[in-house]
């Protein structure tokens, strides 16, 4: 239910992302989804990968500032209004979203949306209570 997301500090410098990708490639780590938050001076790269523990170790070894952030992902139908419904549920329950990013699945008419909230359990409870499916962690790592 809880997905381990890799968060990496990225200095604003030419080639930094390539470096990180190369390190992951060399260690055979597959990226399932990613997003990057950028500011004037630095960025935070957020990744869902097939093996979060290994990815963390690999990046730490290469001297990156890395942490594992526990996030959830919801499954929504790939149609207008589906995500709006989920967001409305969170709003009604006073749950703020710090950030989120979506990816479309290979099969079926579904999209996955990674959501970072303060209280994962509360979000899971209110969403499932209203019929929204939460992605299992294995599904996220190996879909």
């Amino acid at each position: 239910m809880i997905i381990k997301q890799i968060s990496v500090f990225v200095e604003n410098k030419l080639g930094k992302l390539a470096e990180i990708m190369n390190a992951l490639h060399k260690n055979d780590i597959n990226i399932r989804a990613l997003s990057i938050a950028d500011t004037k001076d630095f960025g935070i790269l957020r990744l869902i990968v097939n093996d979060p523990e290994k990815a963390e170790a690999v990046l730490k070894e290469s001297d990156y500032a890395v942490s594992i952030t526990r996030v959830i992902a919801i499954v929504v139908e790939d149609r207008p209004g589906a995500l709006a419904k989920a967001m409305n549920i969170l709003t009604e329950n006073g749950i703020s979203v710090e950030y989120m990013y979506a990816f479309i699945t290979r099969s079926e008419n579904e999209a996955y949306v990674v959501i970072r909230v303060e209280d994962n359990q509360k979000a899971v409870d209110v969403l499932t209570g209203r019929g929204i499916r939460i992605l299992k962690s294995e599904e996220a790592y190996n879909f």
Partner: protein
Amino acid sequence: MGYWNREMETIDRGELKKLQSERLCAMVRHVYDNVEHYRNKMKERGVTPDDIKSVDDLKLLPFCEKSDLRDTYPFGLFAVPMSEVIRLQASSGTTGKQIVVGYTQNDLDVWSEVTARAICAVGGTKDDLIHISYGYGLFTGGLGMHYGAERMKATVVPVSTGNSARQVNIIKDFGSSIICCTPSYALSLADTMDEMGISPSELKLRAGIMGAEPWSEQMRREIERRLGIKAYDIYGLTEITGPGVACECSEQSGMHINEDHFIPEIIDPETGEVLPIGQQGELVFTCITKEAFPLLRYRTRDITSLVMDECPCKRTFLKMKKPCGRTDDMLIIRGVNVFPSQVESVLLELGLTSAHYMLIVDRVNNLDTLEIMVEMTGEMFTDHVKGLEETARRISAAMASTLGLTAKVTLVDPKTIKRSEGKAVRVIDKRKI
């Protein structure tokens, strides 16, 4: 803890003054007779050796400055023939042209004596393994501590600088108990230990004798915690003899100056006026036993103050505080005096313990800019943009309040600021002034 020379280190101050006066008078005569450059300076000032009757007359003598050393490079200030000089050493040359100094046999004996005193003052005995990671060679750090350790018949491990992983293995396998190195290198060794998964409890290390660069009290605590030792400050400079001019005792409350060999004064760096004990100013030394390279009233450019107290260690020598900067590494940014050591204190106060930073000073549209690059650490990193921006803002605000100057703080990737194995380079000044 022990003394190397109890009689001298605990001498009555009245007796000390008598001894200093005798030695000073003889030294002024020696320099006047043998060093043309200084004789001319005395003549210009209208002073002769006969005018110097006690240490109270010290203020009559002209200062000696770094420029005097440059003007007489290489051997113009030597006071004995080269046949009596048995060793040359040179300064690291971080401040312009290098400086070369010479030693007679007696000079080396005195130097060994004062470094032996330093090692004893931090609790060292003949049973210690003394790991010396100061550079060997022309730099006085390595050989200075080496001779002192040998003099007291301790076991010397002359590792010199470099290859931190090997150093850690040696400390662990040989059982080094006292380490001599620069404070920044001590932290670098602590990083290496972390990488190697070695904890201080696996080591026999119990004390460090550290100097050769400015460091803060917070940095001392950091070194002590991460290496599991007591870290003691040592002071010295090539021009005067090298390490051992002054060293801390078990109290860690300032460095006792070996006043039977070196007389300290504190002056106002602007006017040259001698300041009373306790006031901060530029430190000046007069050698009273040196033969080959005896400097009188040498301006060190180190800023500090002297302390006269009844030290629980019973040593009667004056103490000097840790220099808080140098008149020549002092940066003037937008008219504000900035010492890199201030930046370090701020970071450590904020709990940003990696202590790796770099100041970049530039001038854009005739306005000085200060950028402080700070390495991101595992503890500092958070997944939130807001959190990281807040960290940068917090550093910037603390810098502004301590330095009196706004600085742009840039967080950079871990381990991307170059590590040094000698004196740390903390400033890149791109201004063309």
